[in-house]
């Protein structure tokens, strides 16, 4: 699929530190002194929040790899990004 024009791009909060512990990731936000435990998929999405990658690209890549249906993966990715946003782990960059 092609990237939608105007789709926003998630960007990791640069102050948040991620530590990998086996299949889990532990994100530590020093500003809020909060700790967030992530599963493997959430960690992978966190890695992809580089301010250049749009959610639809994440969904496509996960679909290619897992062979799961688009709508299932899209829902998961959106849900994870929403949680990241609500906990200030990411901000959103507008497409230029």
């Amino acid at each position, binding site marked *: 699929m092609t990237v939608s024009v105007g789709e926003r791009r998630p960007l990791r909060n640069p102050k948040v530190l991620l530590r990998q512990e086996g299949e889990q990731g532990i994100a530590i936000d020093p500003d809020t002194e909060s700790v967030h435990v992530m599963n493997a998929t959430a960690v992978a999405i966190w*890695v992809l929040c580089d301010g250049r*990658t749009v959610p639809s690209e994440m969904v496509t*890549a996960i679909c*290619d*790899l897992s*062979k799961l249906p688009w709508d299932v993966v899209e829902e998961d990715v959106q849900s994870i990004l929403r949680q990241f946003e609500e906990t200030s782990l990411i901000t959103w960059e507008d497409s230029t």
Partner: protein
Amino acid sequence: MADPSVKVLLADGHSLFREAMRVVLEAQEDLSVVAEASDGMQALAEARVNEPDVALIDLQLPNSDGLRTTASLADSQPSCRTLVLSDDDDEELLVLALEAGASGFISKSSPIHELLSATRRVHSGETVVPPQMLGGLLGRLISRRRERDHALRLLARLTSREREVLASLARGADNAGIARALVISPETARTHVQNVLHKLELHSRLEAAAFVMQSDLLDELEEARV
């Protein structure tokens, strides 16, 4: 009654490792080792005879390495799913293994319970990737897709004749060869080549061939000819 256990082929160059693995796998009620191989050629031969459900293939196999063996297995035994065992958590090797047809990739330094779990998951149809490598792998997949999308946009600039010329260039043809294949004069072939290079923003025939191969466009060009 048919045996319900998952039939496993074990391919590794080190007999001690194979023997240890066999003991562990055979201790599982749902797994049985139907064949062992110490090199790639033997792995392919054993797979033909024993028709395993899952092949555990070491990347460093002697005599046809693990990647080639995986690709050959995918061709000759499509029902057999392959779990590649690697000494390193190397993202490039992971990508190459998946492209060769592997269904999973696991480090040989993983705990044994992870290997058993990966074997079962691969058999059940999952693609198994070490969690710590998943983000990097997805990043590479996204980069490749971007490059391919860019290449396809450039390709759309070409006429169907120019696409035929590009396909010939990718196969190493010179102007005379292109002219013969397309039944045109060498001068016309030369003009087409110049137009192709200009439209693709390339500077040489070699770059044109690399453009096609790196973006995996040869099938695309061949299909357009049919």
